[in-house]
């Protein structure tokens, strides 16, 4: 799990182009949206692409992301359970 969390943090920084950030700057329990990292709806869509491309998880609509992207930890748990690659 720890490994997946670290991997995810790196992928998020890369895909969202969070310049100057390192995995250590992201608290795995902090909210990704609003307060916390401060991501928005477009970032959520980028994360949906990330999940599909890297883990073979396809979300039918953007609203499903709301629960899954609560924090890096929640996201990792969801991926662990649903990944197809």
């Amino acid at each position, binding site marked *: 799990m720890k490994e997946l969390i670290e991997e995810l943090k790196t992928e998020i920084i890369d*895909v*969202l*182009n*969070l*310049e*100057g*950030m390192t995995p250590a700057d992201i608290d795995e329990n902090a909210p990704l949206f609003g307060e916390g990292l*401060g991501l*928005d*709806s*477009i970032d959520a*869509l*980028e994360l*949906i*692409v990330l999940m*599909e*491309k890297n883990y073979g998880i396809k979300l039918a*609509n*953007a609203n499903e992301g709301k629960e899954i992207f609560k924090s890096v930890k929640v996201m990792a748990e969801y991926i662990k359970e649903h990944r197809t690659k």
Partner: protein
Amino acid sequence: MDNIVITGTGIISSLGAGKEETLEKLRTGQRGIGPIRHIQTKHRDLPSGEVEYSDEQLKELIRYQEESIITRTSLLGRVALKEALEEARLDGTEGLHIAFISGNTVGGMEKSEQFYYDFLHNNSRNEYIAMHDCGACTDIMAKQFGGHFDLITTISTACSSAANAIILGANLIKEGRVDIAVVGGTECLSKFHINGFNTLMILDKEPCRPFDADRHGLNLGEGAAYLVMETEATARKRNIRPICKLAGYGNTCDAYHQTATSPNGEGAYLAMCQALKSSGLRPEDIDYINAHGTGTGNNDECEGIAMMRVFGDRMPPVSSTKSYTGHTTSAAGGVESVISILALTHGFIPANLGYQTPIEGHNFKPVDHVIENVTLKHVLTNSFGFGGNDSSCIFSALDTETPAPMQASEAGQCYIQSAAHVSIQQPIGDDWFHNPVMPAQAYSESIEPDYSKYFAPMAARRMGRLLKRALATAVEALGNHPVPDAIITGTGLGCIANTEKFLTAMIDNQEEFLQPTFFMQSTHNTIGSQVAQHLKCHGYNCTYSHRGTSFDSSLLDACLQMRAGAIGSALVGGHDEMTPAYFEMLGKIGYWKSGDVSPDALRRADSPGSLSGSCSLNMLLTDHSDADTLCRIAGMDMLYQPSDEELRSAADRILHQAGLTVKDLDAVVTGLSGDRDNDAVYRTFLQQYCPETPVVWYKHLFGESFCASAFGVYAGAVCLHKKLIPSHLLYNTSEEISNPKHILVHNHFQNKDHSLILLTL
């Protein structure tokens, strides 16, 4: 000044070609939504409003016999244009000044996405390279007219493009610049568009249901629609019976988010209020609202809130006809204006198909069935675009009282207060004036400033380099001045680095794993709306994408509105970037020199091509001057395919209006670039008009790009302010010129689009 009236309309959409078919489908509640047939995409099962005619069938409709290749965007446009021109009985024999303004976003993308790797790797499809941009699509449509358009340009504000074309047309007529304006928009479906909207997860897998609580997004459509507008007096003179009036219009910016509407629909609210104000009507006078109503969760909720803010509990009947046509994006403002006019003149209200349940918090229900036998006097139509480019137009029956539009005062002045750039010269300031960088080859990268002083990395996470440049130059040009009244942007191609990323990913990954960010940023009005967002500017916002006169179009729009007193300040920009791939493609069609690009070599050159540049320049225009003011814009005009004589008399007219003659000119700034054909046009004008006047050039320093003319204006302004034209800017003499007072800037693109701008101290 009397009313602006509509004297012709033309339309094509998935409902059919022409008003008759459209009307029949509207009144019988028949959707034009179905599976995709013409485009080879993985997403063919997505319901769409595709026009049933193939390209060949469209050509038959207009009896297309020209030899030039033509894109579907232009074909659709010409079908609608033909109908509008015929109804208005415009055939070119009127002897009047006529403008053609077309809204468009994807340009020739539907061909570029098929031939992209041919463009790069072989020479089989080179003829389509120059057909890619929005302006090229407008240019080839202009040939549909038997006569001569005096001025043409292209507006690219995504889904409000056509509505903004209507607004510019009205302003040109009010200013007396033209007698007639032919306005509207066109857009064809493309894989690029379908996949782009798909990444945003806003495409409904069922026929769309605008304003329904259970809506799941929009259906993309395609189509075109044009309107012929003129004053009542012109129509009377031409002995033509008007159809209705354009009573009012509003253009504002939500300045909130690139793809989302603000929760209280601020931009939409302001656009509707402005339209009402300019028409002199009260909210209760509106008999029908043709809503933007895309069917997405966000738009419909927020548009509803904005309408509730304007109309309170007296909401007029509302429907979104996107439930019939799908979302025709850039054409939507035209398509829905024509539909609104059909409703107005035939006394019916089209249905909001698929509606069942109201959205929580909305106090109104859209019209769920066609209503016949109603008297409509005033109809309001909304068109909102990505980036919050929100516009509203009001059409009124002929027998209604609406105040005549204000005659332009002609009193307003227009000064260039400040400017900042990122280019292949040292960025931001005027370092190039004393220490120019001499480009060593045809391709040079821009020199980037340190962006960290302008915005935090988090804010910049989705910005491509062109957006960063545009934002930094906007901040610098604005300095300590208050937020401008308007942001008007020129860009021939928008953020092409991101367009390329999306396009190549789409081709290489077979339409999978595509990133929304690159799609969003490919939309040309991203630049202007991002600047508005950064500055929180809700004022007028428009983007022009008309090849080599994209910047000039922006400047003309700003100057018109400032002269009329409609705005007191404007941030006007020109932004285009070069990428290695695009450089290579343009190289195939003769854009670049292969060897020496030194000033002497360019002067001597008897061959096609020049050196490339990137352009990001913002200038602040104000209606008053102070010690820092660079110069005054004493006059300007744009002309389409002028004869040599027409060009000379336009220059005479501009000088005369400023109380000057050609002898007063201290210099003419030209786009001489070493390209044989391009230079010949400038030389002809110079020889015929002002053979004695010193010639200034700038493309040897800034390179060629669609918005390069911004540097011509900028160079002229800086020379006036510094009271010196340095020798490195002089084309035919090496002696610097002191104390210049009057400078004329001439720009042209392929001898089709010309602009003349008079700068004085």
